[in-house]
């Protein structure tokens, strides 16, 4: 049956309308907005467990190198290195090092490559304790050189247990900062057990014997970072619980100056920041360059009630010396998060938008750790925002390091526990407000 002529026009319009709608509003791969490059979660890894510790942003090719530790099903631990672009695409991944290496730090090296720091241990070696390992690599992750350093026997009796924390790359070498502990022989007349570790290596990874450890008279000393403040001056920054006379009982942030050539120093070139009251402890976690010159320090402040807050402090460089304005830092309280136990692990400058610092930490209690990120102002007193991400109270996730991209996006590396106990290197990109959302 032929359709009545009066229906021809409406039908033609209907068909034409349908064609227009189909042509204009059908989604294809080509017209998808690449929002997946603006923010994402990536879980890099392979069989076994892979933990994320640190990252280095490379602006020249818009990539990032992620460093972590891979624990094989056999139990051996190797360094796990991943190169990804800023869109989150995996470029390559590889494993480096021996069979018992724990990744600690990665820094760009003066030769255009990178220097990796690891804690290593060889139970069959003459020195079976934890030692320091440095590995130099090319930008493509090829190893060019490495060294394992174990402190010589102290007083001919005991090898030190090295707990490296960070490596500082300089034009002519590297300084490793951390802690060194002697189990059976009490160092320095039997008073101290743990001292600041400060090791200097040349670009050829040869150890400079002038740099070994610094005993601050404290019962427990941990170096976090060493910074160079002038041609012949470096400062090692950490925390301990004694002043230079061995007085005091609570922990504070401390820094000590040394000659870059020869390693001599300290003396009067040291100072502390914190709350000088019994039961109030400030433990340093991370250090980054501050705005202007100097350093920005982040750690935790524990009070006698058991409460734990983030603590920030700054010191400026004045004529090559690190100087504090006063001995007071800032206790940061996060509105709504007052009862979350936050342990900061990384800090970096944030230059986009409101200038300040990005502080990354692990929050929560055992079994329910999450990654926690916040931005504070340049004085470290006020919080712009904070965010928490991870599997909430279902699993333990662990923060590694944070960096800001030139466009203000934030990159984070850490460890995500997927499934029951399957650790994977988590790589995250968030917007400048610390959210998984468009900028």
């Amino acid at each position, binding site marked *: *049956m032929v*359709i*009545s002529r009066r*229906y021809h026009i409406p*039908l033609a319009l*209907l068909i034409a309308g*349908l064609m227009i*709608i*189909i042509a204009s*509003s*059908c*989604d*294809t*791969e080509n017209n*998808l907005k690449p*929002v*997946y490059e603006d*923010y*994402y*979660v*990536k*879980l*890099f*890894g*392979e*069989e*076994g467990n*892979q933990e994320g510790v640190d990252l280095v942003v490379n602006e020249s090719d818009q990539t990032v190198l992620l460093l972590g530790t891979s624990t094989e*099903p056999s139990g051996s631990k190797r360094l796990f290195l991943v190169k*990804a672009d800023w869109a*989150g*695409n*995996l470029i390559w991944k590889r494993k480096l090092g021996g069979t018992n290496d724990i990744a600690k730090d990665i820094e760009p090296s003066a030769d255009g490559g990178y220097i990796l720091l690891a804690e290593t241990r060889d139970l069959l070696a003459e020195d079976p304790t934890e030692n320091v390992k440095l590995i130099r690599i090319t930008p493509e992750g090829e190893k060019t050189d490495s060294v394992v350093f174990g402190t010589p026997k102290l007083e001919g009796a005991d090898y030190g247990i090295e707990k490296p924390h960070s490596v500082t790359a300089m034009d002519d070498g590297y300084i490793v900062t951390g802690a060194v502990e002697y189990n059976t022989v009490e160092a320095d007349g039997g008073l101290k057990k743990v001292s600041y570790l400060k090791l200097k290596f040349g670009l050829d990874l040869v150890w400079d014997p002038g740099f070994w450890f610094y005993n601050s008279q404290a019962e427990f000393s941990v170096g976090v970072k060493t910074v160079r403040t002038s041609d012949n001056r470096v400062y090692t920054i950490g925390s301990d619980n004694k002043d230079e006379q061995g007085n005091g009982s609570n922990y504070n942030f401390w820094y000590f100056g040394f000659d870059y050539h020869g390693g001599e120093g300290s003396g009067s070139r040291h100072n502390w920041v914190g709350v000088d009251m019994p039961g109030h402890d400030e433990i340093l976690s991370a250090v980054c360059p501050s705005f202007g010159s100097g350093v920005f320090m982040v750690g935790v402040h524990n009070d006698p009630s058991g409460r734990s807050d983030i603590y920030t402090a700054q010191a400026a460089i004045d004529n090559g010396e690190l100087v504090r304005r006063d001995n007071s830092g800032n206790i940061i309280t996060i509105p*709504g998060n007052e*009862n979350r136990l936050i342990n900061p692990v990384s800090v970096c400058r944030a230059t986009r938008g409101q200038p300040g610092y990005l502080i990354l930490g692990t929050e*929560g209690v055992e079994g*329910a750790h*999450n990654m926690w990120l916040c931005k504070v102002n340049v004085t470290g007193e006020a919080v712009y925002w904070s*965010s*928490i*991400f*991870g*599997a*909430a*109270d*279902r*699993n333990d*996730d662990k923060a590694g390091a944070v960096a800001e991209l030139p466009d203000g996006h934030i990159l984070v590396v850490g460890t*995500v*526990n*997927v*499934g*029951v*106990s*399957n650790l*994977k290197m988590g790589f995250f990109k968030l917007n400048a407000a*610390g*959210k*998984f*959302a468009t900028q």
Partner: protein
Amino acid sequence: MGRRLLTLIFLLLPASCLVCYAQKSDDCEIILNQATEEVNAGHFYGIDSLMADCLKGGFSREQRQRAYLLLAQVYLLLDDGEKAEAAYLEVLRANPEFVTDPSRDPIDVVYLSKKFTATPIFSLFGRIGGNTTFVNVLRSMNLTGEPIDTKYILLPGWSAAFGANWNISDTWSLGTELQYAHTAYRKEQYGLWSTSEAILQDRLGWFNIPVTVNYNFSTGRIIPYAYAGFSINYLFSSKANPTLNDKPSTESESVTPSESPIVKYDYKRKDWNWSAVAGGGIRYKLGLHYLLADVRYTLGMKNVYDYKGAVHDNTLTGNALVSSGESVFRYGNSDDFFKLNHLYFTIGYMHQLYNPRKLKTARTGSVLRNILRGKSGD
């Protein structure tokens, strides 16, 4: 005793009504036959009076059709066109599908019939059935940064709908309906981090409003038909239970499963979508109405995955930390950008809303042609 009597009355009352109706119908059949004989004998006056009582309610539907057809014939012979048309309209009301036959009915009645139609303007229908979902991946999203063997598995769903067709002609109609569809699919990813498997079963609830142009290939008892159009789709619910099966190593046989309870995925799905619709089926005539069996394919046009919901920040609700990103962080689940196509199989019932009416233009052109060809009807 009283209750039994009451029960007996209730049982006998309908039966007695049926008996009365049958008696009345038999009496009216006699009157109808008498009227037919009168007309055949050339006595045209008084026919309407003769059947008046039965026309008030004594005729069965079939008898009413015959009676009014007889009256239409009589009125035409008496040159009372107005009454003839009214009588023929009653014929169609008694039987909307009545069609005159030139070999059986007087030619003037055949011509009269061409001024009328009872074609239903609207048909109402309802249908129910099953469906399955095909996932059309627009962009594969990779949580691990490495190629993963991903499979989408078909799962059954079900749907129910009711709607209406606007019959433009005997063969063309416009249709629309409100459809509820429960659809599902399963996504399986193998080789995450070499050894793990991520599984997701997504159950989606839709309200769909398809608008279609329908074409009937024939008329009669069995009517094949086809249609095409578009559908506006509202996704009101998405629920999933991501699962991660961990293997410690490639050599290991043991698997540690982690299965989420069923959680809402609404924040990962776009609410509105639309799809192209095409389908066909068969309608089987049952009395004046139809049973139908239908096959339909809908081609999703818009991406369903809402990337804004890929990972939410955790929020503190009271003292509890709520993670909407748990499917990613705990179960290693990631969505692709995808569109959804559906295949529906339904059966249903179509009720014709007949509307006997006089046409503005009589379709008399085909009468003589059909007579010459020996065909009947239109």
